[in-house]
């Protein structure tokens, strides 16, 4: 990991067939290479051992509550946007053992547990880089550091990819997080398909990125390559499926009793999908388990959500009992209070909460509806 760019970004152009060389170099260096691939009709993030496992020639159609993959006109590797999963599941896994303990004659002995594979993430989008930076603030830069996250993050190598098209629920431009990656990556890929020639512009964003780049065979990048890459990014920026209204933070803060919250509650299932697919949502719960004989115990941290009853359980009972309260908690935290807490918005504009909501509630539409009442 190196969040600072080197002064002069080294850049080369490799043929699409050489993408596999990148995977091989990373694997040779001991990285678990995690990349998009397909499973059950969706893009998923899994470990790959070859570029052949990447979803070549697929695009996604994303609408509120609906996601479909289809064949692309141009056989590109990264013209889909993303699936429900994000890199969060690797840096901040859904279930993580924190420690185990066993009984001894004197009492009990605790053993800490950290599972930190060395990951290389291939195909990280600009919105997802922004999400990782937000989770860094939460887990590493605050007063209380998550050791597991910190270790996994420190070891992770990021190969970003610039989006050439936007999905139907994307709105990164209005959150100022994309579609082009700015920094925070080790290597960045821009896919180029020109006159039947399929190539990648590969830019180094860190010292480790430079080292890897030097081990790959390609031609030096020319001005025309950068221009083509920029043109593709501009096209993506102009095709955003959604837009977050300006001043969302203030709009929500000023309308905490708006009737729209009750209206949302009628549609909301409180299923928590939006929070679990959100690449910045970081809430978790801890639970202890014991073996049947009472000799061993374990403490686990698991994802939690502000949409569950137990989430707001305190002495005397749960304080957020109805759907309106839970949705408002999520949305105002994400778009308003996050600024107070972390100095940035909690939303990166990836649109996952819209696509993967089973009933298709659209966070941008809800802000717009509330903003109508000035």
């Amino acid at each position, binding site marked *: 990991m190196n969040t600072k760019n080197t002064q002069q970004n080294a850049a080369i152009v490799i043929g699409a067939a050489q993408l596999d060389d990148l995977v091989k170099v990373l694997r040779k260096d001991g990285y678990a290479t995690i990349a998009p691939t397909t499973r059950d009709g969706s893009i998923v993030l899994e470990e790959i051992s070859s570029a052949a496992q990447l979803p070549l020639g697929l695009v996604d159609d994303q609408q509120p509550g609906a996601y479909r993959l289809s064949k692309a006109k141009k056989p590109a590797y990264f013209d889909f946007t993303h699936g429900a999963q994000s890199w969060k599941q690797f840096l901040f896994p859904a279930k993580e053992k924190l420690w185990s303990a066993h009984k001894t004659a004197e009492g009990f002995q605790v053993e800490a547990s950290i599972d930190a594979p060395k990951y290389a993430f291939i195909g990280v989008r600009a919105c997802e880089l922004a999400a990782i930076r937000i989770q860094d603030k939460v887990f590493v830069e605050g007063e209380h550091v998550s050791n597991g996250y910190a270790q996994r993050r420190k070891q992770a190598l990021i190969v970003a990819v610039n989006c050439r098209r936007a999905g139907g629920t994307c709105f990164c431009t209005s959150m100022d997080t994309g579609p082009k990656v700015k920094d925070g990556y080790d290597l960045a890929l821009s896919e180029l398909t020109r006159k039947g020639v399929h190539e990648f512009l590969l830019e180094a964003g860190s010292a480790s990125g430079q080292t890897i780049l030097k081990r790959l065979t390609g031609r030096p990048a020319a001005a025309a390559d950068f221009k083509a890459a920029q043109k593709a990014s501009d096209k993506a920026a102009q095709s955003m499926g959604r837009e977050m209204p300006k001043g969302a933070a203030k709009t929500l803060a000023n309308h905490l009793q708006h009737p729209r919250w009750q209206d949302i509650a009628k549609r909301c299932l*409180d299923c928590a999908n939006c929070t679990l697919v959100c690449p910045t949502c970081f809430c978790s719960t801890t639970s202890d388990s014991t073996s049947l004989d009472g000799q061993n115990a374990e403490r686990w941290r698991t994802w939690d959500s502000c949409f569950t009853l137990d989430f707001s359980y305190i002495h005397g009972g749960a304080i957020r009992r109805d759907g309106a309260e839970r949705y408002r908690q999520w949305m105002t935290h994400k778009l308003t209070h996050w600024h107070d807490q972390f100095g940035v918005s909690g939303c990166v504009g990836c649109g996952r909460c819209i696509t993967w909501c089973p009933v298709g509630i659209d966070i941008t539409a809800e802000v717009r509806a509330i903003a109508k009442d000035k």
Partner: protein
Amino acid sequence: MAHKKPKLAVWKFSSCDGCQLSLLGCEDELLDVAEQVEFAYFLEATRAKVSGPYDISLVEGSITTAEEEERIHQVRKQSKVLITIGACATAGGIQALKNFADVDEFISAVYAHPEYIKTLSKSTAIADHVPVDLELRGCPINKVQLLEVLGATLVGRKPNVPNHSQCMECKMSGQVCVMVAKGQACLGPVTQAGCGTICPTFDRGCYGCFGPKELSNTSALAARLGELGLDSKQRSDLFRTFNAAAEPFAKESVKHD
């Protein structure tokens, strides 16, 4: 001197025995369970009976006869901790379909001699009759949850049995949403988790075997199922299975009758 083991009893009411079988199905852990408790009354495992009172009673099945209505009080009186296991015991089970129809009509259609059949007009959960300390959902119950409840009860801590949606389990296990990615009907968003994500793994929507989750917005889901192409009967049928009589599911199914 070794401590006396707590006495465990397993009781059956109107049910298929599948949830009791989940205890026997623990295989690898069954000997560990037997080391911690005395199987004092468990007819599916042993004909030997040890008299009560019992430290832990697991109750399977619903109340469908006058005899059962009486017997559950006897079980409660003899049990320090009473845990109901499975959809029959916690919601009336599949046999609660009769709650939505005329039982006499069923009886005369099914039996050659209806006069021998004595049954209540409704199948009801154990908690409708006696105080229950803990309800373990599922049709059948999940073995991991059963062991967790037994382990927690033995050491006197609160068991980790989440009451959140099935969707959370799908997302945490990396399962692709069959409703969003394929447009399949699924009860996951209104169903309590716990089965181990069985149906979505096999490319099928959730059937709601674990019953309604807390705050189960069935009407919002039913509206969406309509948009996905389910007609009224299909929607009613979907809510009317193993947990048909659980209140949110029952109310929703009646709306689409």
